[in-house]
């Protein structure tokens, strides 16, 4: 194949070869300097323009990055708040369990720890708790249930294989054999009153009871040990023409915020 003299490849090879050769000889340097001198103002302006473009782009990107970072940190803060609240819950639960263990050790009770898993409203004025222990754990009806400080909060009402229902002391129908810590150690039966307080009725008129007296379990019946605090006498209903007097007892613990309880096995 014959390549013509004016073929583009030939022209290129000759011109480019000449340019490279002259460059390495240094002959082309003046021309290069002139061309650079001509291009300098243009290149300077182009560079400044691109720098401005670059900096504005970076500024915008920085804002976008910051916005993204803020969004990330906000989501992270929300996540950590959730984690923190979970930790607090666990801490609280741990404290309650430790307190329960201490109470049980101090009093020599045998108990089954249970977690409250549900609240069940059988009636408008009562709210039963459902715990995660049942017959398989040795639970049976009538057993006393205490909180972490050892205050009795109710008794086992119904039991299934793995769960049990607890009636709170304030629920109507939740009857406990009780004793008032006064001089005569008045005995009686407590019952829940409208899901708010506890009442103790059929107390002989001769018994001297006063507001502030502590009410404890009497231990009669055998299923609940003696000495567990039920509450304190808030009001005494004493009419001279009545045969019996009654007392309103207020529980000393918050029964709406129970998470961990213990069922005492006698």
């Amino acid at each position, binding site marked *: 194949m014959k390549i013509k003299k004016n073929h583009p490849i030939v022209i290129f090879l000759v011109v480019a070869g000449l340019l*490279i050769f002259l460059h390495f000889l240094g002959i082309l340097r003046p021309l290069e300097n002139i061309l650079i001198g001509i291009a300098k103002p*243009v*290149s300077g302006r182009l560079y400044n323009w691109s720098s401005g473009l670059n900096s504005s782009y970076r500024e915008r990107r920085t804002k976008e990055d910051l916005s993204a970072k803020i969004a990330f940190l906000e989501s992270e803060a929300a996540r950590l708040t959730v984690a923190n609240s979970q930790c607090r819950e666990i801490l609280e639960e741990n404290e309650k369990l430790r307190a329960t263990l201490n109470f049980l050790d101090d009093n020599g009770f045998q108990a089954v720890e249970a977690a409250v898993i549900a609240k069940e409203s059988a009636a408008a004025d009562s709210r039963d708790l459902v715990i995660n222990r049942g017959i398989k754990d040795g639970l049976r009806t009538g057993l006393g249930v205490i909180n972490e400080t050892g205050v009795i909060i109710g008794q086992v009402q119904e039991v299934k294989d793995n769960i049990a229902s607890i009636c709170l002391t304030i629920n109507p129908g939740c009857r406990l054999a009780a004793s008032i810590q006064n001089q005569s150690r008045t005995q009686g039966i407590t019952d829940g009153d409208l899901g708010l307080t506890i009442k103790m009725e059929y107390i002989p008129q001769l018994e001297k009871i006063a507001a502030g007296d502590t009410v404890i379990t009497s231990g009669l019946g055998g299923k609940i040990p003696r000495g567990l605090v039920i509450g304190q006498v808030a009001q005494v209903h004493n009419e001279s023409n009545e045969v019996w007097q009654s007392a309103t007892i207020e529980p000393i613990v918050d029964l709406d915020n129970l998470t961990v309880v213990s069922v005492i096995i006698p």
Partner: protein
Amino acid sequence: MFKRIWQTALFVIGLSLIAVGQLTAIANWPSFFNSINAVLIVLIFCLFFLGFRATTWAVLISGFWLDIFSFNFFGLYLITLFLVILIADRISVSLLTNRSLYSFLLLILVSTIIYNFIFQILGYFSVDTPSSLFLVQKSFWLTLAYQSAWSVVCAVLMFNLSALLTRRLQPFFLEKKTIL
């Protein structure tokens, strides 16, 4: 005659501006945008529409400008661009038969890939103490990907712009006239 001188001057000034702009402006743009290889795109555009002879001159002009401003060995751009144009011309003549957008896209994509490989190979062997081979460098493949993407985008824009300005790229349909 005067028109031809005017066209040649415009051709030279335009190519010089693009070459200078490539090294001073585009190279200074943010990371993703500085991958645009305006010189190569324009050269392929020249090859596609003006032919090999005009493109050879374009390579000489732009390659010379790039070599003046570059700190690589003198002639790197000249040689690389010429080899790319030579290969692109062979592909265009042998494989691509029409002047459609797809041919242009394919040509520009292949040219971008070939350009990067030739440039890196020549650059690799021209330095005294070469670093690790470009093929194992992540930045090479990233630049190649960005540059290819930009080349395709620019090619689409340029082709459509040209189609608006000239009738040469308009599709031609043979109409069969029916006589009622």
